[in-house]
């Protein structure tokens, strides 16, 4: 029985009761604040506190922290407690710093000193306390300080067992922080021999450490294999009375057995026949024991026993060399599949996934297909059903693919929303991987769209199109099937997309049949047109223009549609543009040109399915188990032909080639969807130029934005939105789950009025809401900013408006900082953003003729007045986009001045209170090299430099 803790810390108990008695959150905060004030005054007061009081207050602070409040004082007092000679005070001190002190705290030196003292104490309880603290904090500094000390403690003959246990795990923790503290050489064998230690607790701790060391350096620690096998053998053959307190509910040393089995999974099967035989004996014994009647009805007994069994099965799968054991393991798991414990069914399904990847047991796993399908249909817990899906996916091969895919499709109709998307991808992959007949594949994918259209990601329907385009034998069938699917009264939009694309390419293959004549096809598609989103409509417009080529007889009907007001005057620019251009194309181009431009798509480069890549990304562990390198021979990745092209790379290299043959495989993230789904386009090289003209595709400026500059860490990274604001005055500056900040600004000469709109997106009030503006460096001498205060409470869902008046005194380079602090649900929030107040905002466009431009240009001939940059284009070099940016920048775009019409020439005046600075700008694009040269001359060198810096990032 523990001794009475008479100290009891009454004050603490009273405080905790008080908190529990608080009727509302507000009352609780009030009580806490009162307590904090009290403690603060006690710590600050002149009267020195005795150890007990310090302990009590530190403990209260800890409690407050654990309630979820920030604690910013008391650390020093806690550190003082570490050197107290009363154990209870020391212990509380250690607890406080373990929980509350971060690794880079300035008090760390003091803490480490105290730990050192305790580590060398003669009292093992003090030593353990120090070790626990090191393990709890585990910082780099600790690893450096104690990394060489602890191994000594671990293997020394003088160290008592409990200290050894802590030392082993403490060393493991430091090893995870800093891997170069690995003890090697003479230490190796001494550490390995801990596996032979008399004390089971020491072995249990040590085996964790050894496992980590083996992972770092398997060869050096090879000696552990035979020791681990013999230790394991002794445990599995022990009766449950042999190991006394290390027997857990009649299972001898389950934790140690599990760890030893895990340790052995770091190595291939033992080479030494004796060791190997002994290991196999152990594994057999474990499998045998699983068949024995349970020694207890308690769930703890079966859990411990089965934990060891599952780990043994993992090792059997890892060894992958004993067919007999693999099949036995499979049968055992098969029994668990129908066990009444949900946990066991879950684990059995999971473990079988791995068994399915071994050639020895793949067939044995397939015997359980029916049970797994039943599990999929009847399990009440979605996480178990998820495992069943995984297993079906893993056990699928050519022989059972149709059946499994069929079951999965069936289940999909009622499947949980949370797993639908993943299931769709799995079905799509299996159908592709094991399709011997591609009509089946097309059917499966169209079924997917029918059943779970909302969960069919772009990759899935892109893929079916890639495959149809690449496989001539299935094109006619695909056209016929999509045509039939379209006739259904309710038809998913993804179906319309696939049908639109396929009919646009291969509609002619079914046009012979009166029931699917060109006109019928067209009408059917167009009946869906008005129900679809702009993206799909854009795709359909392309289908129509392809029909112009395929079916000249319905050309007029199509032209009428293209001509209609709802298209030519559509508010979506993309639709408007497509309608106009396609209409022109159909009217002006000769049939030869039409046939070239609108020719059938060339085959896509063969490559790994992008669906697989996504699945891998989503579930790295899972797909590796199925298609990982270890078992690759058995389960090749789902490829038609893997050329090893990585999509993201591909699309990054050629962002402006949106209208190239690559369209469908490219991941959509970099491009606007409208562009990506434009299906027809270039069919061969001769037409490429023409196409670029005709479609006038502009890759949206956001495209390159993904490769944004990396922010500087201290400040919220709003670089991307800052860039956006260089060319515009209004917009959203920042947005997260809690808060949205919008900006509206007006500029007149050197003055600016900026409105900041803070929107509370949550359902709770923001309290103590204080936005403040600060000027880094000497910015305050250059920008005079006046801020109107705002209300400190922002109601849920409300928006607060704040006005800033800014005067530009002289030119500047730094950006003012906006710091916002508020309390949301009792949690202090703070964020700092850079305000988009750049020098170009104070620029006024200036019109001038060629003569005066060149006179001024020549006058500014001092080398410091010029700033120049030559740089690679980040965004597509589209002339309209460039012009828009230049105008947005606040300067006048001057035409007819530069002898080269490709070049852009601009002029503007920057207004400051002290000075007006005239600026002349020349931007020379080189489309061949994808480069620009930017030259800026102004009457002030700092202005030229700053403008050059701001402007070049925009292109």
């Amino acid at each position: 029985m523990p001794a009475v803790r008479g100290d009891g810390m009454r004050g603490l108990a009273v405080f905790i009761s008080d908190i529990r008695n608080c009727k509302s959150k507000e009352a609780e905060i009030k009580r806490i604040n009162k307590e904090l004030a009290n403690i603060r005054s006690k710590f600050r007061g002149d009267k020195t506190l005795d150890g007990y009081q310090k302990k009590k207050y530190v403990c209260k602070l800890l409690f407050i922290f654990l309630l979820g409040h920030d604690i910013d004082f008391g650390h020093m007092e806690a550190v003082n407690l570490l050197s107290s000679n009363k154990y209870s005070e020391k212990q509380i001190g250690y607890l406080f710093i373990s929980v509350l002190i971060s690794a880079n705290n300035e008090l760390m030196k003091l803490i480490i000193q105290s730990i050192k003292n305790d580590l060398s104490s003669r009292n093992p309880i003090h030593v353990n306390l120090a070790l626990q603290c090191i393990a709890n904090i585990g910082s780099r500094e600790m690893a450096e300080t104690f990394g060489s000390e602890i191994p000594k403690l671990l293997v020394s003959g003088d160290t008592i067992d409990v200290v050894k246990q802590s030392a082993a795990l403490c060393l493991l923790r430091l090893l995870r922080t800093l891997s170069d503290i690995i003890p090697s050489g003479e230490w190796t064998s001494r550490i390995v021999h801990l596996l032979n230690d008399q004390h089971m607790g020491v072995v249990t701790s040590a085996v964790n450490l050894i496992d980590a060391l083996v992972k770092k350096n398997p060869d050096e620690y090879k000696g552990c294999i035979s020791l681990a096998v013999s230790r394991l053998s002794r445990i599995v053959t022990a009766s449950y009375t042999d190991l006394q307190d290390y027997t857990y509910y009649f299972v001898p040393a389950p934790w140690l057995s599990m760890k030893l089995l895990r340790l052995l999974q770091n190595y291939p099967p033992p080479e030494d026949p004796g060791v190997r035989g002994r290991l196999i004996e152990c594994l057999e014994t474990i499998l045998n024991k699983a068949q024995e009647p349970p020694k207890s009805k308690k769930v703890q007994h079966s859990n411990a026993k089965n934990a060891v069994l599952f780990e043994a099965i993992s090792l059997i799968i890892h060894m992958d060399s004993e067919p007999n054991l693999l099949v036995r393991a499979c049968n055992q798991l098969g029994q668990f599949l129908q066990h009444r414990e949900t946990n066991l069914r879950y684990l059995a399904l999971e473990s079988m996934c791995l068994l399915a990847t071994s050639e020895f047991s793949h067939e044995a796993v397939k015997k359980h297909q029916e049970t797994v399908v039943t599990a999929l249909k009847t399990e009440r817990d979605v996480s178990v059903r998820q495992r069943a899906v995984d297993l079906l996916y893993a056990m699928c091969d050519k022989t059972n693919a149709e059946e499994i895919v069929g079951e999965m499709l069936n289940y999909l109709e009622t499947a949980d929303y949370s797993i639908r998307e993943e299931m769709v991808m799995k079905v799509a992959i299996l159908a592709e991987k094991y399709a011997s007949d591609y009509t089946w594949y097309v059917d499966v994918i169209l079924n997917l769209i029918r059943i779970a259209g909302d969960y069919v990601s772009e990759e899935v329907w892109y893929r079916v199109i890639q495959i149809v385009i690449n496989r001539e034998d299935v094109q006619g069938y695909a056209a016929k099937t999509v045509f039939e699917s379209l006739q259904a009264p309710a038809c998913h939009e993804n179906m319309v997309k696939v049908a639109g694309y396929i009919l646009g390419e291969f509609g002619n293959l079914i046009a012979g049949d009166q029931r699917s004549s060109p006109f019928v096809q067209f009408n059917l598609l167009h009946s869906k047109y008005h129900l679809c989103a702009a993206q799909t409509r854009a795709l359909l417009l392309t289908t129509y223009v392809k029909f112009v080529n395929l079916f000249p007889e319905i050309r007029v009907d199509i032209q009428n549609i293209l001509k209609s007001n709802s298209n030519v005057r559509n508010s979506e620019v993309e639709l408007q543009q497509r309608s106009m251009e396609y209409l022109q194309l159909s009217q002006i181009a000769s049939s030869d040109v039409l046939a070239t431009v609108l020719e059938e798509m060339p085959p896509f480069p063969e490559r790994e399915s992008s669906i697989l890549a996504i699945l891998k990304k989503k579930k790295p562990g899972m797909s590796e188990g199925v298609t990982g390198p270890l078992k690759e021979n058995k389960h090749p990745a789902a490829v038609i032909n893997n050329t090893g092209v990585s999509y993201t790379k591909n699309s990054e290299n050629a962002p402006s080639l949106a209208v190239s043959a690559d369209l469908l495989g490219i991941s959509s993230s970099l491009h606007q969807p409208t562009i990506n789904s434009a299906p027809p386009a270039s069919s061969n090289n001769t037409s490429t130029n023409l196409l670029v003209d005709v479609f006038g595709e502009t890759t949206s400026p956001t495209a390159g934005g993904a490769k944004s500059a990396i922010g500087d860490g201290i400040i919220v990274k709003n670089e991307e939105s800052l860039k956006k604001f260089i060319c515009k005055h209004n917009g959203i500056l920042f947005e997260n789950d809690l808060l949205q900040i919008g900006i509206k600004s007006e500029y007149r000469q050197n003055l600016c009025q900026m409105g900041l709109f803070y929107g509370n997106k949550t359902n709770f009030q923001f309290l103590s809401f204080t936005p403040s503006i600060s000027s880094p460096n000497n910015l305050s001498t250059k920008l005079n900013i006046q801020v109107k205060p705002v209300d400190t409470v922002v109601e849920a869902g409300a928006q607060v408006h704040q006005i800033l008046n800014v005067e530009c005194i002289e030119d500047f380079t730094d950006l003012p900082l906006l710091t916002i602090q508020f309390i949301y649900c009792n949690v202090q929030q703070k964020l700092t953003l850079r305000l988009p107040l750049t020098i170009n905002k104070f620029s006024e466009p200036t019109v001038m003729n060629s003569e005066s431009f060149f006179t001024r240009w020549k006058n500014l001939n001092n080398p410091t007045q010029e700033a120049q940059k030559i740089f690679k284009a980040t965004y597509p070099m589209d002339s309209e986009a460039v012009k828009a940016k230049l105008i947005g920048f606040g300067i006048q775009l001057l035409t007819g001045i530069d002898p080269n019409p490709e070049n852009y020439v601009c002029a503007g005046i920057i207004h400051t209170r002290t000075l007006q600075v005239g600026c002349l700008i020349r931007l020379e694009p080189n489309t061949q090299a994808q480069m620009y040269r930017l030259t800026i001359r102004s009457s002030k060198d700092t202005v030229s430099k700053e403008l050059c810096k701001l402007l070049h990032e925009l292109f």
Partner: protein
Amino acid sequence: MLQFMLLFSRQGKLRLQKWYVAHPDKQKKKITRELITTILARKPKMCSFLEWKDLKIVYKRYASLYFCCAIDQDDNELLTLEIIHRYVELLDKYFGSVCELDIIFNFEKAYFILDELLLGGEIQETSKKNVLKAIAAQDLLQETSPSSSLPDWNLTVILHALTWDPLEPRKHLRVFLKTMALVKGNASEDCCSNETTLGFGY
């Protein structure tokens, strides 16, 4: 390796948290919030394991308290359940029929016991006897209290004296605390449910 352990009540109140991997406070709060919501939404007969991000969550409910551990992908789920059980056993033995209130009022003890069971996210000592021995040794080191620190409020002192049981010091403390709660007018449902012992095996 165990990444962290959380104890929370049926009402979603966090009672104990132990992190074996460093995270910023903000993230800890986010993780905690998400997990508590996820687990409280699950039905009783469901599986005790779930995938969460790249971790596995193992949880079990004992009376009003949920014990929840996050482990790595290759860790053993069943034995993690048993780590939880062993911890509950230890608390039970130490406090004598442990209940949620014991953990609230003696959170520091709960931490000390956990530190003896697990270190750096790995199991340190599986023997119940040995852990209790270590804790008893710590308690022995602690100074005996001056009698002046006994509570001096009228009613509670009486009740306190009445419930004193020298053989079951922990139990006495709990009854005492409960009494205090009653005296202070908090005999609410919440209090009673906190009083339920965690018990075993369900």
